[in-house]
């Protein structure tokens, strides 16, 4: 069903297309708002809350959050000095969230950033050059994707005696690049046939120039979408490792908090705030990242946009 095509043939400039306003995408805004709220919580928390309370034995044990009754005998009532309660090693939950959240985010961002940079370079090379280079890169990345990454990560991290945030991120990056490589390669394969690539060739541009000046700008939305998806994927993977006790033991993260909660039998003892609060925080982060990722996806792929204007 061909409607009047207002954009291609007419000799008057077409009206501002919906794309011009697409940054006002509701999902994108909602996702960004959620993440901003998380960041604001962390920043304000650092300013106004004593984060040393996240250390072991800095507070009374097993206090429920303010406004909630103790889950059973042997628990003391909540104290206003510890509004979100404390756990069994004497750590303040609010301070744990304030210090643990940025650490978890950082692990995800490190892994995703490395994955994206490596993936972009490999994907663009493969997609644009083609031939045997493409074959080698494609086979390698496909092979890595089939490896059950969690199992390998468990093995590696159990051998590494001391893990910090950076090494955790690097570890996860080992498995973060193939996905990005595939996405970017597919995009470059479609973009390199565009007229403007031929135009750049006619203008005497070299292959690296075409890749960086012509293709990369058009890949930015895809990179952003892939990056956000990759951040949440890596936070999830990190949380998985940490919940198994294979995370950094010196610095608090959301995953390690869950690990301690499991070890402390928090569920059996009815201490829902111990495991529930870090999970709630992770959920907010995931939903925020997810909304941003699908918002960006709609932005670059107008067919997904509601209203069907494409």
């Amino acid at each position, binding site marked *: 069903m061909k409607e009047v095509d207002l954009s291609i043939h007419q*000799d008057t400039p077409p009206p501002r297309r919906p794309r011009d306003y697409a940054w006002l995408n509701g999902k994108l805004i909602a996702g960004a708002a959620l993440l901003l709220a998380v960041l604001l919580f962390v920043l304000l928390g650092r300013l106004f809350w004593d984060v040393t309370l996240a250390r072991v034995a800095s507070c009374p044990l097993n206090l429920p959050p303010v406004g909630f009754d103790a889950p059973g005998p042997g628990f003391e009532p909540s104290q206003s000095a510890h509004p979100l309660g404390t756990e069994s090693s004497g750590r303040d939950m609010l301070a744990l969230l304030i210090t643990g959240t940025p650490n978890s985010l950082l692990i995800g961002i490190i892994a995703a950033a490395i994955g994206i940079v490596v993936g972009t370079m490999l994907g663009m090379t493969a997609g644009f050059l083609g031939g045997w280079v493409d074959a080698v890169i494609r086979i390698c990345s496909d092979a890595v994707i089939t490896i059950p990454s969690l199992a390998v990560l468990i093995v590696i991290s159990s051998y590494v005696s001391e893990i910090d945030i950076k090494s955790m991120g690097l570890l996860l990056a080992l498995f973060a690049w193939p996905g990005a490589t595939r996405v970017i390669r597919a995009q470059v394969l479609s973009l390199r046939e565009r007229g403007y690539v031929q135009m750049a060739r006619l203008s005497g541009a070299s292959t690296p120039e075409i890749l960086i000046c012509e293709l990369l700008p058009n890949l930015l939305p895809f990179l952003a979408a892939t990056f956000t998806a990759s951040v949440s994927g890596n936070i999830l993977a990190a949380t998985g490792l940490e919940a198994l006790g294979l995370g950094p033991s010196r610095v608090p993260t959301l995953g390690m908090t869950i690990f301690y909660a499991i070890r402390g039998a928090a569920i059996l003892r009815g201490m829902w705030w111990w495991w529930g609060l870090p999970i709630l925080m992770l959920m907010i982060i995931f939903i925020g990242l997810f909304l941003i990722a699908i918002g960006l996806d709609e932005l670059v792929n107008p067919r997904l946009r509601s209203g069907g204007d494409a």
Partner: protein
Amino acid sequence: MTTASEKTANTPLLEVRDAVKVYGGGFLSGGRRVHALREVSLSLDATPARITAVAGESGSGKSTLAGAVLGFVQLDAGHVLFEGQDVAAMSRNQRFNYRRSVQAIFQDPYAVFNPFFHTDHLFNLVMRRFGIAKGRKAARARIVEALETVGLRSDDVLGKHPHQLSGGQRQRIMIARACMMAPKLIVADEPVSMVDASLRSTILDIMLRLRDDNNISFLYITHDLSTAYQICDDIHIFYQGAQVESGPVDAVLGNAKHPYTQLLIASIPEPDPTRGWGTQLPPDDENNDRDIINGCPFYPRCPKRMEQCVAHLPARVSLDDTGHQVACHLFVK
């Protein structure tokens, strides 16, 4: 290979010698082999500038030929020579000269713009690369001048994103960009097939003016014989990679000899209800995908096919001294 100093006036501007290109049919890729070019040869003189049409339907190989001339397509056999130099084996300097001298206009005036940049980007790209003008002011003046050649006001189009412009404006910007480089040859790949009737004559008129005033030769790739007849000097009719008829446009279209050229001309609907379409229907296209490897590719649809047509590709035969050539067994003596 001749060097620039040895170049004589006889060296054609562009020469295609026995070009062959086959797609598919590899060991791994499998599938049907498609003969995009079958020993195609043509030559464009340097002066005076002429418009040479390469006409054919889809699958005729005309776009492959354009790609080969522009250096986008690697030939399986044969050569493309620009000013006597093989495009596939050029030194750095020769390649620089070739890139500057051979430009193109494409069919889709939207896709050639990178949506990320303003329209200026296309101009800046060549300014930087080829050092066409010194300094910002001179560069700007050069761009404005080129835009005026194609009837555009620079204020209307510069500093805008491509989607803010109309199809006609975009196509004219492409021509302006090409002629700003003062090329010797412009490959125009279906430049008017996506623009409206009223703009078509504008763009064709610009091509004629560039030929006459700026001495730019054109290789006009088209499926539309009527526009070719109106603006071209020479024409080559292609069918499935084979050059079936070539020569001066008046001879080829006014006195078509090859059954395929005749069929093409008869199939054009005339804007005159009193002049009906011929009642003789073209043969059905059901056999269209039968690939004739050695013989005449038009054999399955040819109303005058003979036994020898399937055996081997007919050689080109000169019909007179004007350069009218036809590749058909009917004319092989």
